[in-house]
C-alpha cells in the first residue's frame, strides 16, 4: 500500500471545492484540512490527547527547529517525531529552507543549497536538498516537503524564474535522496512568483515527477490579495484532480473559505495559536481581543455554539482577567482557536458533501464581514468560481483592505508570514 492515498469524496457542482479522504501511515485525514503548527514537537500548551479530542488528524512540524532541538540524532534514537512527542496521528514537515531564509539574516542560496551560519557556533554550513530530505527522513513525518528556492513574493524579474527552475531541479535531487518512500510522501512545491506562465510551467514540470501530492508555495508573504487568489486559482486549475493540494502558510478564516472554493485541500498557519498568546479568540466575525475592558463583565462563553472544553467552562470575563497573565490562558485560548479552525473545515467538508457549499460561502461572508464591505478580492475570487456575493449596502470599495480593529484581522503581512515559532 502506498504511504499516501487520496480520493475525492465529493465535488462542489458550482466551485472548484472538493472533499477528499487522504490515508496516511498514521491517520486518515479528511480534506479540506487545517493543520495546526507544532513547531518544536508540541502545539502550544495543548496535550496530544486534547488534539485527538478535537479530532485533529494531522500536525505540522518545522524541520529547521527540530533539527536544532532535539536534533536528528535524538530523533533517530527516539524512533522518529511521532514517538518522541507522543503523537500517534499524522505529521507533515516543511523542508527547513523557508524558515532558514526568513530567520537567518546570513542565509544565501546557490545551486548547491542554502548557505547559512550555524546558530550555535556561527560556522558556515549548507542545507542542500539532500540534507533536508535526510533530516525529514529522520523525523519520519507522513508528508515531507522538497527544499525549494525561496524568494520574497514581492520579487520580480529573472530571479523569480531562476528560483522556479531551480526548485524543479532540486525536486529531482530530493526524490533521489529520499530513503523512505515506502513510509513518507514527498511533495514538490509549485513556485513561479506572481507570474501566470511561470506557475503553469512549474506545475506541468512537477506533474512529470512521481509524487503523491503538491504544495503551492511562495504565496501569503505580503503580495496583494488580488495576486494571491489568482495564483492559487491558476495552480489549482492545472494541478491533477486526483492528488491533494497544499497551500502553505494560509490560515485566516476568510482566506480558508476562498481557497477551498478555489480547490485547495490542505492548509497550515501559526495564527490561531499565536493570536491566543495575545489573548485573542477566533469567532466567525473575526477575533475577540479578550484583554479589552468590555469583556470584564461579560459572562458569556467566547462562542456559545462552540463545543470546545474552554467554551463549556469559562466565561469571557474570566478569560479577560487571566489572558496574558496566567499561562493557562494560552492553553485555553489555543484550544478554542484550534477547535474553531477545525470546525470551520469540518463545516466546509459537510457543505461540499451535501453540495451546499456556495450557500455556506455566502452565509459565512455575511457573518464574517457583517456590516463591513466585503473586500473586492474576495468578490472577484468567488466570482471566478461562480459565486456571486450580494452587493454591499453601501459601496465602500476603496476601504477594501483597510484593517479594522477587532472585526478584521490585523494587516496580513505581519501574520501570514510563517514565523519562527507559532
Amino acid at each position, binding site marked *: 500500500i502506498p504511504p499516501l492515498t487520496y480520493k475525492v469524496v465529493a465535488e462542489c457542482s458550482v466551485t472548484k471545492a472538493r472533499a477528499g479522504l487522504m490515508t496516511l501511515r498514521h491517520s486518515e485525514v479528511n480534506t479540506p484540512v487545517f493543520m495546526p503548527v507544532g513547531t*518544536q*514537537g*508540541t*502545539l*502550544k*500548551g*495543548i*496535550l*496530544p*490527547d*486534547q488534539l485527538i479530542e478535537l479530532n485533529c488528524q494531522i500536525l505540522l512540524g518545522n524541520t*529547521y527547529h527540530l*533539527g*536544532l*532541538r*532535539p*536534533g*536528528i*540524532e*535524538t*530523533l533517530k*534514537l*527516539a524512533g522518529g517525531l511521532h514517538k*518522541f512527542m*507522543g503523537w500517534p496521528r499524522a505529521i507533515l514537515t516543511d523542508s*527547513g529552507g523557508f524558515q532558514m531564509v526568513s530567520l537567518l539574516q546570513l542565509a544565501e542560496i546557490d545551486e548547491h543549497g542554502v548557505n*547559512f551560519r*550555524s*546558530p*550555535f*557556533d556561527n*560556522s558556515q*554550513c*549548507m*542545507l*542542500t536538498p539532500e*540534507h533536508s530530505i*535526510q*533530516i525529514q527522513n529522520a523525523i519520519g513525518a507522513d508528508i515531507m516537503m522538497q527544499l525549494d528556492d525561496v524568494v520574497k513574493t514581492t520579487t520580480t524579474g529573472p530571479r523569480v524564474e531562476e528560483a522556479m527552475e531551480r526548485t524543479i531541479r532540486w525536486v529531482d535531487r530530493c526524490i533521489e535522496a529520499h530513503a523512505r518512500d515506502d513510509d513518507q510522501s514527498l511533495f514538490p512545491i509549485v513556485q513561479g512568483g506572481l507570474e501566470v506562465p511561470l506557475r503553469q510551467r512549474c506545475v506541468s514540470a512537477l506533474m512529470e515527477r512521481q509524487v503523491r501530492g503538491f504544495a503551492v508555495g511562495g504565496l501569503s508573504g505580503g503580495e496583494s490579495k488580488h495576486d494571491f487568489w489568482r495564483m492559487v486559482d491558476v495552480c489549482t486549475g492545472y494541478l491533477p484532480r486526483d492528488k491533494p493540494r497544499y497551500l502553505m502558510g494560509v490560515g485566516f478564516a476568510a482566506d480558508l473559505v476562498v481557497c477551498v472554493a478555489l480547490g485547495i485541500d490542505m492548509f497550515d498557519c501559526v495564527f490561531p495559536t499565536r493570536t491566543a498568546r495575545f489573548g485573542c479568540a477566533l469567532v466567525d466575525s473575526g477575533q475577540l481581543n479578550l484583554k479589552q475592558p468590555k469583556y*470584564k*463583565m461579560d*459572562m458569556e462563553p467566547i462562542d456559545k455554539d462552540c463545543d470546545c*472544553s*474552554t467554551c463549556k*467552562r*469559562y*466565561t469571557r*470575563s*474570566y478569560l*479577560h*482577567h*487571566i489572558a496574558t*497573565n*496566567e*499561562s*493557562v490562558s*494560552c*492553553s*485555553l485560548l489555543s*484550544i478554542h482557536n484550534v477547535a474553531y479552525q477545525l470546525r470551520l473545515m469540518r463545516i466546509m467538508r459537510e457543505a461540499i458533501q451535501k453540495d451546499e457549499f456556495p450557500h455556506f460561502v455566502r452565509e459565512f461572508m455575511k457573518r464574517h464581514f457583517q456590516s463591513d464591505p466585503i473586500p473586492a478580492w474576495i468578490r472577484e475570487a468567488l466570482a471566478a468560481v461562480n459565486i456571486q456575493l450580494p452587493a454591499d449596502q453601501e459601496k465602500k470599495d476603496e476601504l477594501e483592505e483597510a484593517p479594522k480593529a477587532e472585526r478584521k484581522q490585523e494587516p496580513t503581512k505581519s501574520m501570514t508570514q510563517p514565523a519562527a515559532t507559532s
Partner: protein
Amino acid sequence: MKFAIESITKNSGRLGQLRIREGGPELRTPLLMQTTKGGSIPWLSADVFESHVSQKPQVLQFTLSTMDQMAEALAQWNSGDRGVSDYVGFPGHLNVLLLRDPCETTPSGGNDRDIQPLFTRRGRESLTPERYMEMVASIKPDIYQGLCDADTNAESAKKRVQKSVDRTEKFMHYIYEQRGKVPSTLLAPIVGGYNTFARTQSIKHAREQPAGSYGGYILEGFHTNGLTATTVDTDKLLPIVEHCVKQLEEDKPRLLPGAFTPLTILELIAQGMDIFDTSYAYCAALNFKALTFCFVQAGEKQVPFLDVTDDANKENFSPLLKTCSCLTCQKHTRAYLHHLYKTNELLGPILLMVHNLHHYMAFFETIRETVAKDKMPELMELVRKQNGDAQVDYSIAANTKVITKATMGKGFAAAAM
C-alpha cells in the same frame, strides 16, 4: 462548615472529617488543597486537571494577591446561583480564600497600623480591613482567612514580631465585628513569628472571641512563601508549632499554607496540623523538577527529584518515574520533557505539573492511611532516608540554568555540513 476528629494519636497526628458546605462532600484531613493562580491550577486547565489528575472534589486555595482584580466581576457573577469555583471553571468544587500566594516569595515591607500590603501582578495595593471585607463579600469564598500581618520569619526581631501581633489584632477587631455580613467561614489568623510569647498573645485574642466567631485557624508568619518555606529550620519550627497547638481549640481545623518539604509536612501532621496545599509541587515544577520521592515501602533506593534540566536526560527515553501511572509517565519520556525545557515550551510545565500533582496527591493518600494506622514514624523514616543511609535533601534550588545556543543539539548543522 463542620469538622470532626476521627482519631488522635501521640505519634501520628490527627485524622478528621471536614464538610465545608452543607450537602457538600465530606473531606478527610490531613487535607491537601489545590493551590491556584488567578483561580486556575497553575498551567492546567480545569479540563486537563479533571481528565488527567483527579475527578474527586477539591478544595481550591484562592489567593487575593492573584484574584483581587476579579472582585468586581465576581460581585456580579455571584448575584446569580453560581459561585466563585464555577467562575474559575471548577463548578461544585470548594474553596478557601487566602491573602498571599504561597507559590511566590512575598516581598517584605509596606505594613502599617491601618493597612496591609497586597502584592499583586500590578504592584503593591493597600488593603484596609474595610476594603478587605468588601472584597470577601464580592468573591464569596466558602472559607476566608482573617486579615493579618504575617511578614515575619525566623530572623525577625522581637519588635517586628510584636508589631505583626498588634496589627493583626487591630485588623481582626474590625473583621470579627463585621464577619456577620459575609456568609463565608472565617479562619482566625495566628501570627507571632518564632516567639512563644507573641504566638500565645495572638492565640489568646482569637480564643477571646465568642463561640462560633470562626471555624478554624490559619498559622502564618513562619516563612514568607515561595521557596522560603522549603528551607525553614524544623528545629525552630516544630517547637513553636507545638507551643501553638497546645493552646488551639481541638475541634477546629488548622491550616498551614506554604511549600514545606514532604518531610516537614509529615512532622507538622504529627504535631496536629490538618490542612496544607500543593505549592511544593508547583515550586518543583516551576524549577523543572519532577517529584520522585518514595513513600511506599518498596525497598528501592530513591532520589527526591528528577532534574529535567539535566543534559543526561537528552536521550533517556524512560518515564520520569517508572512506577507512576500519570499521563506524563505513561505517554512521555524524560528526553521529551528535557526537550520541552530546552525549547521553553508551555507543555513542559503542564506535563510536570500533572506528574507532580499526581505524585503529591498520592503522597497525601498514603499519609491519611498512615495516620489511621498510627504508623507515622515509619513513614517519616522512609521519606527521610529514601532507603539510603543518609538524610536526603528536599529543598528546591531555583533553576538558574540559562538556555544558550551552545546547548542546542548539533544534529541539524552536523547533517548540513
